[in-house]
């Protein structure tokens, strides 16, 4: 199955580059496979929340951060992975540490919850080459829901 791979050029313009890519796909220049536009919007939200978290919080020991995005079709779903050479963190432990309910009208701290809510099979694991890799699936069959108290 053909995959789309993008190596980001600069950490300083990472989020702008992400949106330039999605703008291109939304405006008709397709990925190398068919997909539902609704799934693409879900993918964009998930990728944005992860990259936003990385830009704001990730720690890099190297002076040259590297980030790579891969997308491929998996039946009616899109599989996505985002690898980086940051110091990483334990995403599963982060989720485990969260309170069971969010504050009423939360102003911060919902980015990774949104990411988890709109994806399936989410994981962030170290790879043999020393980098870390986030991977997940998004599908048209999902009815994602993040419970926020109003």
């Amino acid at each position, binding site marked *: 199955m053909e995959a789309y791979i993008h190596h980001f050029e600069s950490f300083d313009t990472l*989020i702008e580059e992400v*949106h330039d890519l*999605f*703008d291109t796909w*939304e405006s008709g220049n397709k990925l190398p496979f068919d997909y539902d*536009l*609704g799934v693409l*919007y*879900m993918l*964009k*939200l998930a990728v*944005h*929340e992860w990259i*936003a978290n990385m*830009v*704001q919080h990730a720690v890099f020991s190297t002076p040259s951060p590297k980030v790579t995005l891969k997308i491929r079709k998996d039946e009616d779903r899109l599989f996505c992975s985002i690898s980086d050479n940051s110091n990483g963190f334990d995403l599963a432990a982060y989720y485990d540490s969260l309170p069971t309910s969010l504050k009423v*009208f*939360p*102003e*911060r*701290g*919902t*980015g990774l*919850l*949104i990411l988890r*809510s*709109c994806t399936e099979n989410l994981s962030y694991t170290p790879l043999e080459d020393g980098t870390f890799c986030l991977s997940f699936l998004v599908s048209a069959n999902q009815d*994602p*829901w*993040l*419970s*926020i108290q*109003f």
Partner: protein
Amino acid sequence: MSFVLESNADGTTIVHIGKALDFRNAADFKKLCQDQVRNGVRNFILDFSETGILDSTGLGSIFSLYRQVSPLNGQVVFASVSRPVQVVVQLTRTYKVFRQFPSVDAAHKSLA
């Protein structure tokens, strides 16, 4: 990524969000709206017609605005919600709090 404001004599402000309301400009949005509330504005129409991303931080800044105006009998409503923004609205069920209108005019008529 600046916002365009339209203030009306009836105390309603229309905020044309533009391409994004996210971690890059949410603080600007919050400050802008705080200034408006300080100047007596109670009702806000957020125009999402051109918006490609509303993220968790952007949504948090809207929650902040809502918390300011709702005790003052003010309202925050959404207009011309684009599909990428609709994904977030559905995911977070915020349609329960923020009424949605197909256009800014329709929202304005409803608040008049």
